[in-house]
């Protein structure tokens, strides 16, 4: 574990060297501990693959004090680590996301399947047969970086990113998986479309569906079901 300043009002704690289940367990545990015990000074708390970054307000607390309190929590967390952290994080909330894999919304599915030596149904079965974990949110509001995509399906990012990817696009890049919450430029391979809103800016405050630590499963649905669930084809 290592702790370092990351900005004038931020501190990053590194909890692991490589991303994965163990790193995620430590990150979610540490984030929960900080949220519970340092709400009086933190303004933002950003968990990522191997680290947690705390943002604070210098008007409320100085650097040395924030750092000391974080170090105490790091101690507390490492003392209890062996016993419960991996068991706790193994839980995580399960979120099932319906996906329509039809060719009209899946421009890269055929190529990804062929590269994996599968037919389209085989690729769909493999993509929807795996369980994914949310390791980080970023890039855009509600964009969840998930893993791990089954080995045979792993396709690199497109050399030329698309100027516009439709909202709800279900995508993969290397071992990572994601659903685009919003229409935006993007370079990931698109395998289908999800009718569920991952970022709902119409509500106040806006709602974000996925959180770090969530478990995600993709469930194939028909075109009719996709539309019934509010999916949009001509985005």
């Amino acid at each position, binding site marked *: 574990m*290592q702790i*370092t*300043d*990351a*900005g*004038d*009002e*931020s501190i*990053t704690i590194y909890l692991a060297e*490589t*991303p994965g289940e163990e790193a995620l367990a430590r990150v979610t545990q540490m984030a929960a501990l900080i949220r519970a015990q340092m709400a009086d000074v933190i*303004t*933002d*708390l*950003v*968990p*990522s*693959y*191997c*680290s947690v*970054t705390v*943002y604070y307000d*210098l*008007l409320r607390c*100085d*650097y040395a004090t924030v750092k000391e309190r974080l170090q105490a929590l790091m101690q507390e967390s490492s003392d209890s680590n062996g016993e419960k952290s991996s068991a706790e994080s193994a839980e995580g909330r399960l979120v099932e996301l319906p996906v329509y894999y039809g060719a009209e919304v899946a421009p890269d599915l055929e190529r990804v399947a062929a590269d994996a030596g599968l037919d389209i149904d085989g690729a769909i079965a493999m993509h929807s047969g795996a369980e994914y974990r949310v390791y*980080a*949110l*970023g*890039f*855009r*509001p*509600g*964009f969840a*970086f998930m893993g791990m995509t089954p080995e045979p399906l792993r396709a690199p990012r497109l050399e030329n990113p698309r100027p516009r990817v439709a909202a709800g696009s279900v995508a993969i890049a290397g071992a990572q998986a994601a659903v685009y919450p*919003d229409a935006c430029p993007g370079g990931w391979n698109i395998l289908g479309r999800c009718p569920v809103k991952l970022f709902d*800016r119409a509500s*106040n*405050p*806006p709602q*974000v569906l996925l959180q*770090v630590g969530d478990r995600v499963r993709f469930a194939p649905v028909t075109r009719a079901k996709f539309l019934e669930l509010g999916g949009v084809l001509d985005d």
Partner: protein
Amino acid sequence: MTEFATVERAGPQTLIQDRGRRGQQHLGVSVSGSADARAAGWANYLLQNPASAALLEICLGPFALRFSRSTVFAVTGADCGWQLNGQPLANWSTHTAPEGSVLEGSIARSGLRSYLALAGGILTPPVWGSRATSVGERLGGIDGRPLAEGDRIPYDAVAPRRSTQTPPDYVREYPHQIRLRVVPSNQFTQFAGGERQRFFAGVYRVSPQSDRMGVRLAGEALREVPANLVSEAVSPGVIQVPSNGQPIVLMCDCQTIGGYPKLGHVYRVDLDWLAQVRPGDRVQFVPGNLAEAQAELLQQKRFFGVE
């Protein structure tokens, strides 16, 4: 009582901003807020507005606003030659617009961003407690977009206030060459010693691809750039170096996590200078330290007030 002012010329990018959107970065929501926090702070301070009041950030101009009733306002930041009904106005000052008057700014002579605050503050609906516009995320302001001709800007009309101006010693002109102080990051030593020297010796040009997400710089490229990292949180001020060796200083609309190696971060108070550079302007970096960066930031925050 809520009043409305009408945008007659919107300019290339005029945004409703405030001190930014906090508490949602874990969802991938950027902080946003005024790029030049100091100039924005002065505009509200002169009007005795709360420090959190929303105001207009006008990038470059030209811009024009019509007042349907008598209103006190303040202008700071880049000097875009403000005129009220054709009469020149002093920058870094408050003024009173009579009913039906038009306030106009042309293209700024130096600097990039002008701030226009209305007494009482702008009252567009807050999103997660902030009115800041984030164009990329389509959040805040008016429908998350830059202002357009004909937009009606709601504000809280308050009683007239005594006219006032920023003391001359605190007024800024924005030069074409700036020096930014840097707190080295924990990844600083992953850059070879020669590359670190090259970075601090270099004079970089501001690229036209710069925006509120990041100021891209072009100069002698760093040759040996460490490999990308496992993505971790990033914030305004962070200096990223992608594999082309040309540094990018992240600004207020930056994304919340990133994986490029980092040399360090620019002092928050120095980002107020960086917010005013134009394409082609020159930037140099000098080594600094966290204690100094925090002391100056704290002083600025205390001056402009907690609320």
